[in-house]
C-alpha cells in the first residue's frame, strides 16, 4: 500500500542577492523530505513544491498564493529575510496556513500562523554581548548592513553596553550588497577599537572581513570581530586567512558534538560531498521539516490547528540538540552557543548554555542589571561570568 502524500511548499530564493544561503536551506529541506519519505516512522510522504521568488520581496506573496491555491499546501517551509516573511504572514493568516520559518531574526513578532524555528534575539545577540562585556571590552565599533537586522541588533547592543557603563564607538552602515568597505576598515585601523561588531550580510560581510584582515596585518593589529550570523559556508567564501578568529553566536555549528549531529553531518556530506559545509540556516530548515513531520504524525492530520497543538512542547532531539516549540509565542526553545572560527571553515565552540533557552522574541525578560559593569579603568576585563560553562 502506498502511503498518503502531503503537499509541502518550499519557498527559497535560489536566485537573487541571498541565493547562496537560500540554496543551502533548500538542499536541507529536500534532504529532510527524502528522509521522512524513506522512513518507516512516518505513515505519509511529503511532496515538495518548490518556488523561487528570486529574492524579490513582492514575489513571495504570489509564490505562496500559488502554493495555497494550486497545490493546496497547508504548510510552507521557507523565507530567509524578515521582509519576505512579512509578505507571507498576511496570506497564511488569512487562509489559516502555517509558515515554518528557519532563519534567525530580530524578534518583535509573533504570528499564530508562523512557527519560528530560527533563533530569537535572546538566543543570539544577548549572549554575544554578555561575552563581549565579560571577556573582551566594553567599547565596540559597529559595522553593519543598512537594514532591520543591523538596526535592531545594534539597538540591543547599545542598550546593554551603555547600561553596563560601556560605549558604542561608532556605527557605520553599508547598503545591502555594497562591497566598498575601505572607508570603514580605514576608520577601524585608525581608531583601534577593542572590538568590532559585524552585522554586515552577504558579499558586504565577506569583503569587509577580507579587507579588515589585510589591513590589520599591515598595521600589526589584532582586533576581535563579533558576529551573530557568520556560518561555515560563509567562512569558505571569505577565505582561509581572513575567516579565522571571528567570535560568533549561533544555535548551531557543524562542529557540535553528539551522535545526532555527527550522523546528520555524515548524511549531509554523503549527499552533497565531503567539501560541502552545513550552516545554521540549513540545519534549521532540516529541523523545520522534521518538527512538521513529527507534529503531523502526532496530530494524525495536516490540519493547521491540530498540527500547531501537536508541535507545542513536543521535544525533538535534533542535530543542534533538543528543540521544541513554545506555544506561548510559537518560537523555539534552542541552545545558544558561542564559538571562534578556525582553519578549515569550522567553528570551535567555547561556550554553550546549560539547557535550551526559552525564546523571548520581545526581549521582555532581558535584565540589564545582570550585565557586568566593566572596570572603566581598563579597556578589557577578564572577570568570569558565572553563567559561562566552558565546553572546550
Amino acid at each position: 500500500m502506498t502511503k498518503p502524500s502531503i503537499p509541502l511548499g518550499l519557498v527559497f530564493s535560489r536566485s537573487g542577492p541571498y541565493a547562496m544561503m537560500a540554496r543551502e536551506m533548500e538542499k536541507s529541506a529536500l534532504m529532510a523530505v527524502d528522509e521522512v519519505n524513506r522512513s518507516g516512522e512516518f505513515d505519509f510522504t511529503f511532496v515538495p513544491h518548490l518556488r523561487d521568488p528570486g529574492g524579490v520581496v513582492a514575489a513571495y506573496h504570489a509564490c505562496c498564493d500559488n502554493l495555497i491555491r494550486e497545490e493546496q499546501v497547508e504548510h510552507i517551509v521557507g523565507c530567509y529575510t524578515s521582509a519576505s516573511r512579512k509578505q507571507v504572514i498576511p496570506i497564511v493568516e488569512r487562509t489559516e496556513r502555517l509558515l515554518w520559518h528557519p532563519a534567525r531574526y530580530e524578534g518583535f513578532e509573533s504570528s499564530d500562523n508562523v512557527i519560528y524555528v530560527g533563533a530569537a534575539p535572546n538566543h543570539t545577540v544577548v549572549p554575544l554581548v554578555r561575552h563581549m562585556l565579560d571577556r573582551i571590552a566594553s567599547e565596540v565599533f559597529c559595522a553593519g548592513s543598512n537594514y532591520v537586522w543591523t538596526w535592531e541588533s545594534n539597538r540591543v547592543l547599545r542598550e546593554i553596553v551603555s547600561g553596563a557603563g560601556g560605549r558604542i564607538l561608532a556605527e557605520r552602515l553599508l547598503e545591502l550588497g555594497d562591497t566598498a568597505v575601505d572607508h570603514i576598515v580605514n576608520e577601524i585601523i585608525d581608531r583601534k577599537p577593542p572590538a568590532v561588531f559585524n552585522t554586515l550580510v552577504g558579499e558586504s560581510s565577506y569583503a569587509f572581513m577580507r579587507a579588515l584582515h589585510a589591513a590589520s596585518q599591515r598595521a600589526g593589529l589584532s582586533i576581535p570581530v563579533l558576529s551573530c550570523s557568520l556560518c561555515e559556508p560563509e567562512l569558505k567564501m571569505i577565505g582561509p586567512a581572513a575567516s579565522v578568529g571571528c567570535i560568533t553566536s549561533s544555535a548551531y555549528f557543524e562542529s557540535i558534538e553528539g551522535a545526532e549531529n555527527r550522523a546528520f553531518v555524515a548524511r549531509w556530506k554523503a549527499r552533497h560531498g565531503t567539501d560541502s559545509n552545513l550552516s545554521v540556516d540549513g540545519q534549521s530548515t532540516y529541523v523545520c521539516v522534521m518538527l512538521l513531520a513529527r507534529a503531523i504524525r502526532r496530530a494524525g492530520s495536516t490540519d493547521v490547528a491540530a498540527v500547531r497543538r501537536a508541535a507545542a512542547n513536543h521535544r525533538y532531539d535534533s542535530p543542534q540538540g533538543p528543540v521544541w516549540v513554545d506555544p506561548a509565542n510559537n518560537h523555539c526553545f534552542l541552545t545558544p552557543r558561542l564559538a571562534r572560527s578556525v582553519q578549515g571553515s569550522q567553528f570551535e565552540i567555547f561556550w554553550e548554555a546549560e539547557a535550551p533557552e526559552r525564546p523571548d522574541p520581545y526581549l521582555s525578560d532581558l535584565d540589564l542589571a545582570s550585565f557586568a559593569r566593566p572596570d572603566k579603568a581598563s579597556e578589557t576585563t577578564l572577570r568570569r561570568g558565572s553563567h559561562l560553562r566552558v565546553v572546550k
Partner: protein
Amino acid sequence: MTKPSPFAVRGRRALMIMKDERDIALLRRQFDRLGMSVIEAEPAQSQLPPDPVDVIVLDADSIPIKSDCALSWKINSPIIALIGTETPSRLKWLLDLQPASFLVKPLRSAGLYTALVVAFDCAQRRIEEAAHVERLEDRIRSRRIVVAAVLQLIRAHALSEEDAFTLIRQTAMRYRTTIEQLSVEIIAVGGMPNRTSRTA
C-alpha cells in the same frame, strides 16, 4: 473661524509615500470612496512635492532608518504611519517624525477612516495647543514687566505688594485692557496713568 470637523474628510488631500503596489491600490480605492484626492511620492526622494496636503500616509518600512531623506522633509501635515516592523529601533525612528496616527500592515479596507479622523483631530489639537502655549509664553515674558509695574506703584503710592497688584488688575479690567499692557504704561509714566479714555 469655525473649526474643521475631523470627521469631514471629503475634499481633503492626501500624500502617499509608499512602495508596495498592493497597499497603494488598496488605499487609493479607499481614499476614492471617502472623496479625498491623492498624490504620490517616492520614499527615496529627498524633497516632497510642493503642493500642500492635509495628511501624509507614510510606509515606515519603505525608508531605511539611517537615511536622512525623511528627516530633510519639511512636514507640516499630520502623518499616518504604516507599520510592519515593530522593532524598537524602527519605532524610535518613527517617533521622531511624530506620527498623528498609524495603521498596522497588512492593510485592510477598514481602519483608514479612523486613522484619518484621529490624524485630523490630532493636527487640530496640535494647532490649538501651539497657540495656547504661545499665549502662555507671552505672559511669562511679560511677567517681568508686571513685577516692575507693581514695584513702581509700591514706591510711587506707598502701597503693599498685594494692594498694588489688585489696583493694576482692577484698573486693567475697568479700562478693558490686559494687566500686561497696563503695566507697560505704568512703567512708561512712572505711576498709575491718568486715563480718560478706554484703550484696547
